[in-house]
């Protein structure tokens, strides 16, 4: 579904991504791991069009999407959530998700129909599956950090993505919240038949839900493979898992 081939991106002299390779098959849950500064977030920014690549190819469903602006990439079926909460703080929780649903349904430019009556069922069903129904009228900026991170994912679901990219979905969460969130992600993947690409620091989480793992270091892909392959790889053990 998604292939990234020898992707490169530099900021001035710093090579943030320097030869990343990644394959994501339909229906798969793929994790990207690597130490801080390995280029995981930059990789996600390149795939979703927030940054422009220098070299390499990003193929989604057989088409190179490397030159498309973010909103076009989203329309192709890729949605993402952010590591640092990136929501609409002044809108209600309902409004946050509805904006995405309206955009997906191409109804955002409707000028005179009141928005409260449009795309209500779709929005509510997303909020329900994310467990945010009881907070739908709250202003998003007033939610707790954990709930805002959940809302992050809910907004991304508003676009009915085929590929959902989650950039550290549990950053800043308590262990209990982390557990619950990953359960939720797993359930979503099953229910909606989503393909998920995520990055995460907690190795227990990664090894418990990912089917394939890609390891990055200094902007470079060391290996992508099954859990066993990654666990047994010498280079990974030295570089990252601390050579258990």
């Amino acid at each position: 579904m998604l292939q990234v081939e020898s992707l490169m991106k530099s900021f001035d002299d710093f090579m943030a991504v320097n030869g990343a390779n990644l394959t994501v098959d339909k229906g798969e849950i793929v994790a990207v791991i690597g130490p801080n500064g390995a280029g995981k977030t930059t990789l996600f920014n390149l795939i979703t069009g927030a940054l422009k690549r220098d070299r390499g190819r990003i193929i989604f469903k057989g088409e190179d999407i490397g030159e498309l602006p973010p909103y076009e990439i989203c329309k192709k079926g890729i949605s993402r959530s952010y590591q640092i909460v990136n929501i609409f703080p002044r809108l209600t929780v309902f409004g946050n998700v509805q904006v995405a649903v309206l955009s997906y349904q191409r109804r955002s430019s409707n000028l005179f129909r009141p928005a409260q009556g449009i795309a209500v069922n779709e929005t509510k069903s997303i909020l329900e599956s994310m467990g945010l129904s009881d907070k739908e009228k709250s202003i998003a900026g007033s939610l707790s950090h954990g709930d805002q991170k959940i809302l992050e994912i809910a907004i991304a679901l508003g676009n009915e993505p085929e590929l959902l990219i989650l950039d550290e979905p549990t950053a800043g969460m308590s262990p209990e919240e982390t557990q619950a969130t990953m359960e939720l992600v797993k359930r979503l993947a099953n229910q909606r038949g989503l393909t998920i690409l995520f990055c995460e620091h907690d190795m227990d989480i990664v090894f418990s839900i990912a089917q394939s793992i890609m390891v990055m270091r200094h902007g470079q892909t060391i290996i992508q493979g099954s859990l066993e392959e990654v666990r047994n790889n010498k280079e990974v053990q030295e570089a990252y898992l601390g050579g258990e």
Partner: protein
Amino acid sequence: MFKNIIHSKWFGLIAGIFILLFICPLFAPRFFVYILALIYVTSLLAMSLNMVVGHGGLFQFHHGVFYGVGAYAVALMLTKSSIPMWFGFIVGPVVAAIIGLIIGWFCVRLTRLYFGMLQISLGSLIWAIVFRWYSFTGGDDGIHGIPMPSLISSLNSSYYFILIILVICLILMYMILKSPFGNTLQAIRDNSQRCEAIGINIKRYQLGGIVVATFFAGVAGVLFVVLERSVFPDLLFWVLSLEIFIMCLLGGWFTFAGPILGAAITVALRTFVGRYTEYWTLILGIILILVIFFLPEGVMGFFQDLFKPGTKKVAERGKG
């Protein structure tokens, strides 16, 4: 939507205010009626600015241009052409929206302060053209004694005309802000990066917002001509643009009706304090400083907080 408005607890209050304003000319002195009408015109202008500034998050620094363009368009139509007068009234807002589209098309390519700087430059260009082109626009003399349809030629009848158009525009603006388009525009203001990531072409929506806002500024320009029967280049000068910016700030960016309050405060100060001293802007400045320090959400925003506690906290978190 109308059901919602009618059932809201504010409906009685709002309806009461409008009834009072409607019967005002029956007993109020002429001067007072004139000032009220001026406040309506200025309110509409400030509200149109707030659509892009408060709700759209765009630094539309030189919004007065579109007010002036609307006013000049109708003034030129009524004095230099023989088209039916009422038709000339429609030309004003349409021309303002077209100029808004052209200037906006360039400006949305830039962001934030750069957007504002380019907007000031292009707007000042239009001011310079109007100011210099004596044979067509009358230069710094402007155009005076513009003929009006007899139906709205007296002060009282023009007062009613302005009030009715204002109410219609307020309803339209309210509908637009509550529509998917309005919500999307506010989402772009809150977080443009995220909007792109959910499939929204932000430049297109920002340009759309500018066109709508400049259309309403054009309507305000037409109403100014109805009230004053003259136009002059000051209508397009940046000082006026700054003034309406201040009105939005005074009333509250994020409220619907705030700019009306801001316009009323500013016009009243200019009229009643301006009578005693030409330094009335000094008082405006002091009020502005106090508002910024103590009511950062504007006067209207402050009252909203009183009745709907909880929104203030959001504003503080939203900044972070």
